[in-house]
């Protein structure tokens, strides 16, 4: 007997595989469903072959963007009609944060990033520091040069992902930043004092980095200006900046602004 749609959904979510479910929430065949995902050819039907075809196409698109929401169609999938409302629910695996540098701040950043929902990788070329024992909360600890690791995994990074360079050692972070700029990663930040950051910019220019890209994409010194000091406070300032970069907000206190909260 084939698995039920719920079983397919449950297994995909448990295995962290992308999956999307389309359900009729208004119109004929209330509750009818289509499921599609990584490793799942579409299954189920909304009760009309044309509607199935159009909704399947849209569901695949919503899944790629990790979006969930309602779409309206005519009875056979016509655009600009609203006989049928369909809720498309996407389950996308968690976004990825790559942290370069196994330093004091790293452990705190791993913890806060996990709370926010990231899958976290710590990478450092020094094997005495890059150990699972020091970063028990990380999903993965990799001993490698940051830029070499990025060459391996960079094509999997997208707008939802983040690269945080905490090495504050030019010999590691200049090639790491260059390699990160070659990816589509949504957030790129690097730690260091104002002086370190200025020196780093000079070295990036000397190394032939595209300085327009650097000024458009690199957040350095990393983090929002919260005035904290401890590794934990710094980790919150970094994650807060990652969120603000994603939403495109200039961060101030909500009590100092007016307008919509979300």
């Amino acid at each position: 007997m084939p698995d039920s749609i719920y079983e397919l959904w449950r297994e995909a979510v448990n295995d962290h595989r992308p999956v999307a479910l389309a359900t009729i929430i208004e119109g004929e065949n209330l509750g009818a469903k289509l499921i599609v995902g990584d490793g799942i050819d579409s299954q189920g039907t909304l009760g009309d072959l044309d509607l199935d075809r159009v909704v399947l196409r849209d569901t695949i698109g919503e899944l790629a963007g990790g979006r969930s929401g309602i779409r309206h169609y005519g009875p056979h999938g016509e655009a600009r009609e609203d006989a049928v409302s369909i809720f498309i629910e996407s389950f996308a695996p968690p976004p990825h944060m790559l942290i370069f540098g196994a330093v004091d701040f790293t452990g705190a950043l791993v913890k806060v990033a996990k709370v926010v929902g990231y899958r976290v990788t710590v990478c450092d070329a020094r094997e005495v520091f890059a150990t699972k024992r020091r970063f028990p909360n990380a999903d993965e600890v990799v001993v490698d040069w940051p830029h070499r690791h990025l060459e391996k995994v960079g094509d999997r990074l997208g707008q939802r992902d983040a690269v945080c360079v905490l090495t504050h050692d030019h010999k590691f972070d200049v090639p790491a930043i260059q390699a990160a700029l070659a990816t589509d990663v949504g957030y790129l930040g690097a730690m260091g004092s104002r002086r370190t950051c200025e020196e780093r910019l000079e070295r990036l220019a000397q190394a032939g980095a595209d300085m327009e890209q650097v000024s458009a994409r690199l957040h350095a010194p990393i983090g929002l200006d919260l005035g904290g000091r401890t590794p934990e406070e710094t980790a919150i300032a970094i994650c807060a900046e990652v969120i603000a970069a994603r939403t495109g907000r200039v961060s101030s206190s909500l009590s100092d602004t007016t307008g919509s909260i979300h």
Partner: protein
Amino acid sequence: MDDIDRWRRSGHKVALARVVDIEGSGPRLPGASMAVAETGEVAGSVSGGCVEGAVVSEALDILSTGERRLVTFGYSDDEAFAVGLTCGGTIHLFIEPLDW
């Protein structure tokens, strides 16, 4: 999901309530879901705790009639909504029996 598995293994019917739309401010995004067993046990949440009680009674009603439906909660112009969200938003839930 572990709770859902356990309830179903014990032969209990389960209803699933999913946030499908939000207007204004709302604590949970579309896709947030809550499961209700016919015993009244609950897993997950669909708001910051503002409407969960009302969702349980809707879900139990839907389990007994088998009729899935869209339900709206929130402070809106319509006074028919008895249960409000403290954040001032409106949420639309689709509640259905887990029979698929």
